[in-house]
Structure formats: structure tokens, C-alpha cells
């Protein structure tokens, strides 16, 4: 029984250089909820973009619509210049790794990886060769004859990655592939996914709610909020220059310290800091990273140390300002050694640009 599926784009997908992805004006509603509210997203060839956001922000919906597993109510999708807006999932040529374990239980690891190749009518020798190569790539060359239930969670997800890449997909889609795994495996596999992705050069969309994961592996991170992209930028830019309050608060830890904006300058405590575009005018709250705050013991200081936590190379201290505001500071452990709980301190803030939001 051989049911071969026609695969219109197999010719274009043989090159692993990566294709550009263009999603325009995507709209999707479930009842009265706008899961996607006019999403525009562009991926450069070979780029890895991570969509980051809290649950219900629409990131998974965006990925599933790109995969063709869900229909958009409006908007277009094109990959490598080819319009895929109304092409069914099985003809889109996208490799996908799911959050839930998705290996076919009745097939061996090798047959799982070769499944997509079989559908494409590749010869038996050819698909065994290719599937074997893919398993070597994810470091599971020795597990070919095993079944899914004989593998650990991390191994299963690696096989799923190999299976998705075996078909030389136009785009690789990763839907929270690590969230079912324990912390140590998660970090290891995350780095491995990035290595493999850079190896094969496939344009990749990765969806996660874990910001550390996103910042660690992305070329660019897109932060989604209520069905829209709030900001899309390289991880370091996203971290240092959040465009909106949501991004500033969602990505990394932020203190919210009362501030007053005058022109291009924010007055935060005693410091004068440049403000980022999009900041509120007048009185507001400055979003200040804990590592931008340093504490200097000072009897005249306007804050009191509440707690100190030793984390190895760095320590985290919370201080209470005289107006009751709690501020978190991250310091070298050497600097933290001079602090005592209950002692008065002065806050010094690194003069990097801050986002000031309305109180």
C-alpha cells in the first residue's frame, strides 16, 4: 500500500539554504477572543525567530497557522515567495516538533524518521541512508531499532527533530518542544537544537513561554501580547531597550522605581538617565534592571537592606526605599559582602537608557 502524496515544492526544498517567510495581517478569532489580531511577521532565510509570550498570547496559534494545522480568518502566508495561505498542511513542506511526544508508537526510531521520506516516494536505500544521517546529527545513531516507549523524553524530542528535518523542510516549526522535559535536559537540548538548526540552515520559528530559552537561542525574539507582536528584536536589544511596558516587564526582571521625565531625561532617585522611545512623559515608573542597581553602604542613604541571597558569583539583595518601594539589586558577591540586613544604603543606577511607563 503506497500512498504517495504530491509534493509541489520538493524541488525548491532540496537546497537547505533556507527560505524567507512572510506572514501578513493574520487574524484569528475563537468566539469573541482575538487569538491573532493582525499579526505581521517576517523571517529572513535561515533565521531562527522565537515567539515569546504568556499563555494565550497567540504565539502557538501563529505557528499552527503557519503549519497549516489551523486556518486564519484573514491574512496571507508566503514561504520563499510562494503563497501558502490556502495550502493544506500536508503540502506545505514544514517540519514540525510538538510539545507533546509525537513519535509514531508502532514504528521504530528509524522508520519514524524515514516516514516523511517514504511519503515522498524516496527509495528504501535512500531513506534509510538519510534517516540514519539525521539520527547521527542529533546523536541518536545507535538507537535506530528502538521504539518510542524505550526512549527518554529528551531522546524522543531529538528523534522528532530528526524526523522533521529529514524531509528537508522549507521551514522548521518548534512548538514548545522542551516544556515537557526536566530543566537539565531542557538546557542541553535547547543548545543542541540551535546547533543543528545552524548546521542545516533551515529557517525556523520557535514558540516558547520561557524567556531564558528564547533569549539563549534566537536570532530575533518576538514578544507577543494579546494577539499582536509588541516588539521583535535581537535578544540583547530586546533586553536593553524594551519598546513597551509589556516587553520590559515580561522579559527579564525589572524594578519599577518612581521617576519623573523631563524631555529626554528621566530623574530616577538621584540619577539622571536617558529615556527610551515610547516612554511616558511626566511622572511615571522607570523599569530598571536589577543588575543596573548598585548598593553602597551609607548611613545617610534613603533605603534599607531587606534581604540578601547568595547565588554563587552574584548575589541578589532587596532593599526598601523610604516610600516603601521594594527594589531588587543584583551585585557581585564581593560587593554584597559589605552589606548587612537592616543596614542603610544608597542606590546608584547605571546610566543606561530606561523605559518609563505611566504609574
Amino acid at each position, binding site marked *: 500500500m503506497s500512498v504517495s502524496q504530491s509534493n509541489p515544492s520538493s524541488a525548491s526544498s532540496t537546497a537547505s539554504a533556507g527560505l524567507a517567510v512572510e506572514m501578513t495581517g493574520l487574524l484569528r478569532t475563537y468566539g469573541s477572543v482575538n487569538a491573532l489580531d493582525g499579526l505581521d511577521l517576517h523571517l529572513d532565510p535561515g533565521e531562527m525567530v522565537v515567539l515569546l509570550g504568556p499563555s494565550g498570547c497567540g504565539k502557538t496559534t501563529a505557528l499552527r497557522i503557519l503549519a497549516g494545522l489551523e486556518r486564519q480568518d484573514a491574512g496571507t502566508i508566503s514561504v520563499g515567495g510562494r503563497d501558502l495561505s490556502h495550502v493544506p*498542511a500536508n503540502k506545505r513542506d514544514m*517540519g*514540525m516538533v510538538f510539545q507533546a511526544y509525537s513519535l509514531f508508537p508502532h514504528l521504530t526510531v528509524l522508520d519514524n524518521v524515514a516516514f516523511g521520506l517514504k511519503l515522498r516516494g524516496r527509495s528504501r536505500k535512500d531513506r534509510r541512508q538519510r534517516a540514519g544521517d539525521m539520527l547521527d546529527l542529533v546523536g541518536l545513531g545507535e538507537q535506530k531499532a528502538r521504539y518510542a516507549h524505550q526512549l527518554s523524553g529528551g531522546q524522543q524530542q531529538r528523534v522528532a527533530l530528526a524526523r522533521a528535518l529529514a524531509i528537508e523542510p522549507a521551514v522548521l516549526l518548534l512548538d514548545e518542544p522542551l516544556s515537557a522535559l526536566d530543566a537539565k535536559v531542557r538546557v542541553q537540548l535547547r543548545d543542541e537544537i540551535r546547533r543543528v538548526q545552524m548546521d542545516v540552515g533551515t529557517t525556523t520559528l520557535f514558540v516558547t513561554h520561557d524567556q531564558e530559552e528564547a533569549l539563549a537561542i534566537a536570532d530575533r525574539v518576538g514578544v507577543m501580547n494579546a494577539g499582536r507582536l509588541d516588539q521583535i528584536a535581537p535578544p540583547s536589544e530586546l533586553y536593553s531597550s524594551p519598546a513597551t511596558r509589556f516587553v520590559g516587564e515580561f522579559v527579564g526582571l525589572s524594578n519599577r522605581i518612581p521617576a519623573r521625565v523631563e524631555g529626554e531625561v528621566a530623574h530616577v532617585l538621584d540619577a539622571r538617565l536617558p529615556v527610551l522611545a515610547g516612554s511616558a512623559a511626566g511622572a511615571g515608573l522607570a523599569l530598571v534592571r536589577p543588575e543596573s542597581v548598585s548598593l553602597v553602604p551609607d548611613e545617610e542613604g534613603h533605603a534599607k537592606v531587606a534581604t540578601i541571597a547568595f547565588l554563587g558569583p552574584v548575589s541578589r539583595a532587596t532593599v526598601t526605599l523610604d516610600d516603601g518601594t521594594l527594589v531588587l539589586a543584583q551585585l557581585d558577591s564581593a560587593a554584597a559582602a559589605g552589606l548587612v540586613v537592616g543596614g542603610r544604603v544608597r542606590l546608584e543606577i547605571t546610566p543606561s537608557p530606561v523605559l518609563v511607563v505611566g504609574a
Partner: protein
Amino acid sequence: MSGAWVWRVSRWLLLLAFAAFFLLPLVALLDFSTAVPRTGGRTGAAWQSLLEDPQMTAAIKTSLLLALFTVIGMVVLLVPTMIWVKLRVPRATRLVEFLCLLPLTIPALVIVVGIKNVYAWVTYLVGDSAMTLTFIYVVLVLPYAYRSIDAALSSIDARTLSEAARSLGAGWFTVITRVITPNIWPGVLGGAFISVALVLGEYTVSSLLNYETLPVVIVLLSKSDAPQSMAASLASILFAAALLVVLSFLDRRRRTPGGK
């Protein structure tokens, strides 16, 4: 006397009690079907006639074929439908379940009375053959087959498996035949076995529609040649039991790691 000892003894007593409950009637059947009246001797005549009596062999053939066609009809009808409902129209689940369980709530007698009119047309269109019972039997086995397949389908993540297959390029036909069905095979086999057992034992409908299936002939013969009818009963029970053993063996072999 320790608790474990009591436990072990009572376990054996229970086992023996149940074995006796199930096996004694079978032993009685065997005894009756092989006894020579008054002399106390043994004879295999009744068993031999199972293979020689044309009426009996025809009935056995009819029932076996009916079982086969019913299983094919059930699998072809139910398996794709249930997978489709599970993946594509989950809100129809309740409706399909209700429809499949419906035959259970209607007495066979009522079904026959209702279906007799329909069968006038069936005989007119496809001819008067006992094989036309397949249509009714497929309906009669639905509730049992549904339960069995539903359990298997609930035990796998059908949605994710189908989405994975589709992203790899599989159309719906391939998803159903090569991804989902192989993974619910134990449930399908279970449903098939129940169907066979049901068809081999179905009396009411075939008798009222005047078709000579095995149960009908067994009842018929019990009035003229009781030993032969007993032999046929025992044979059909043993056949169903053997089928169960074979099917569960097939099932186990599939699930053993490394077995294919």
C-alpha cells in the same frame, strides 16, 4: 495460620469454583455428545456428522462467512468514522456514541419486526441470501465494537500523531490507515473478536428471518438429533475461545518490544 496462607488457599478455591462453573457445562456437552445411549460406550458419530451432514456444514459455512463479512463491514464502517470524528468533528462524538449504542437498547425482536419491511427490499435488490444478514449484524455489533475501539483511541494522542503525520506530508487517508489505525489495532482486534462471537451466537434475527445459520440449525437439530446439536454447540464455543486466544496472542506479539 498466617494471612498469606489464607489468601493463597482462598485464591485457589475461587479459581476452582469459577473453573467448575465455566467448565462443567462444557464437560456435560462433551459427555452428552459422545455417549452411546444405554450401553455407556463412546462414539464420535455426532462429531463426525458435523463435517458430513450437509445441513450442518452449510450452516457452519454460512455463520463463518457472516462473521467474516460482519467484521469487514464493521471495520470499514466504524474505524475511519471514529477516527474522523475524533480528529475533525469532536463535537459529534456524543451523537456517534449514541447512535452506536442504540442497538443495545432495542430488543432484537423489535429490530426484526422493524427491519422485515426493509429486508423485503434487500432481498429484492441483492437476492435472497443468508449473507444479507451482514447488514443487520454490522448494526448489532456496533455497540460492542464501538466501546473497544473507543478505548484504544482514547489511549493514544491521536491529534498530535495526526498533526505530526500531516506536517510530514501525509493526507487524511494515509493518516487514518498508516498512522492511527496501526496504533489502535488491539482495540480493533478486540472489536472484531466480539463481533465474531456475537455473530456465531446470534439466533433471534436469523431465525425470525428464516435463514439457517449455525445457532438456528443447532436448535433445529436439538429436536431430532440432540447429540449432534450438542457437539455443534461445543464446537462453536471452543472455536470462539480459540479465536480469542489467537487474537490475544497476535496482540501481545505486536506489543512486545522488538517484535514486528
